[in-house]
């Protein structure tokens, strides 16, 4: 049953990539912003979780819960004060600014944490696994996968069922007309990036507990 196992592991790993992509796609979908620093944001969030775990001795999951509002604030401010200024018809300015941001984050992390590989330890959960008939699956990969499904379902509900979601879609269609509806596109964009950073934090939790990471592992 080797091939079945391979497929299962592949699907579960796919969950992690789905988490990586969900935040990126939220930002791109609403403001057509190609965020080249997205990978570095994930690594930044992983370091944030690492700091909370090592200095306060917290469980990684609690640490991620604390990191979420922090990352939301970082994302919100980043979009509101920096990235909003780059948006426009030309796609080059956001590309350049996020390239620069990527380099700034990498070097900032290198200065603070050195180039060593780090890892967040999740205790006994890491080695735990469940038997699913012919194959076994690790608890962490399973949690990753179901978190990804939950995140995507929640985002979907938010975008298609709520008033804020309507504002997201309307702003994505036409920011000027959205303004006439009382929507402030700048704030909508900031909120979207903040939300993307919350998803990034969830992704970072699973990235950090699954494998080693270092300040330069963002782009890949």
């Amino acid at each position: 049953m080797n091939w079945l196992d391979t497929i299962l592991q592949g699907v579960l790993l796919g969950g992690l990539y789905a988490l990586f992509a969900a935040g990126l796609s939220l930002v791109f979908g609403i403001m057509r912003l190609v965020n080249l620093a997205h990978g570095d944001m994930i690594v930044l969030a992983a370091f944030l979780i690492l700091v909370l775990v090592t200095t306060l001795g917290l469980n990684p999951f609690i640490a991620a819960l604390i990191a979420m509002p922090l990352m939301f604030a970082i994302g919100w401010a980043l979009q509101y004060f920096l990235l909003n200024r780059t948006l426009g018809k030309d796609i080059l300015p956001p590309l350049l600014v996020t390239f620069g941001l990527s380099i700034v984050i990498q070097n900032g992390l290198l200065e603070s944490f050195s180039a060593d590989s780090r890892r967040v330890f999740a205790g006994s959960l890491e080695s735990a696994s469940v038997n699913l008939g012919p194959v076994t699956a690790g608890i962490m990969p399973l949690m990753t996968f179901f978190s990804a499904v939950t995140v995507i379902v929640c985002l979907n509900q938010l975008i298609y069922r709520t008033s804020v979601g309507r504002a997201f879609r309307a702003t994505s269609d036409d920011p000027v007309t959205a303004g006439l509806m009382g929507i402030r596109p700048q704030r909508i964009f900031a909120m979207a990036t903040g939300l993307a950073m919350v998803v990034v934090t969830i992704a970072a939790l699973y990235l950090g507990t699954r494998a080693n990471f270092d300040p330069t592992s963002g782009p890949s």
Partner: protein
Amino acid sequence: MTMAIPSFTVETRTRASMLTAIAVIALLLLAFAAPFIVSRGVIQDLFFILTMLVLAQNWNLLAGYAGLISVGQQAFVGFGAYTMFGAVILFGVDPVVAILIAGLFSVALAIPTAFFTFRLYGPYFAIGTWVVAEVVRLLLAQWKALGGGTGTSLPREATREMIGVNMMRDFFGMKASEAGDALTYWLALILVVATVGFIYGLLRSKQGLGLAAVRDNEQAARAVGVDARRMKTLVYLATAFITGTCGALIYVQKARISPDAAFSVTDWTAYVIFIVVIGGIGTIEGPILGVIIFSCCRTCWPISAPGIC
């Protein structure tokens, strides 16, 4: 009522342009003579600047003239470099010949790539080209004969016995390593001249006019009969050839390759975009000015952090 009809004269060879031409030729002669004048370290720096200039001119042609904003040009740098390594290591081809083969293989890569990415528009195109570069990187990292994920080095004798190196040793009394640096430097200089010449010629031709029309308003250009898709494909393939050649040349000089370095988005695309944008996008002088500013920045603020440079 009489109207004064202004009489126009068009002069293409003015005194100023003659002087500029003379200055450029003098500068080129000086540049060709550089290996006899300055130290090896300076030649290596100049080599780096020249290759960055070639990449910048290419990206400028793509983005500034054809409106194709690509963040995946490292695909061709890396692919060209790997083709050269493959030709040298597996088939024992001379590195200088392998550089040209690398250019041709890059075009071969660009054809299927264009097929996919040209279906995309604007930011989607940018992301698409990046995805292509990542796919090529991941595939080549699987190639065990060329070192897989960790990379490999060129055999020492291959670079020592390149076409021209022996000749240069005999004629100029250079050491093999010195001769190798001088040779790659001259090749880079020739590549710069050829690239700038090609772009200059292209922009002054009928095709160049079509290209400018496509960039400014694609629909209007199509309406007057410019085949926008053909123009863009032509530019894309031409830049793939030059970028691949340049990538191979860079790695003949480096003599050591790894997938992460050869397909580095920062080195081969981010810095290149920086050069073009700082110097002035959509002009031939822009990348030249940009590369000067870029190399000044690097000299003034050397980057010491590992993995970034």
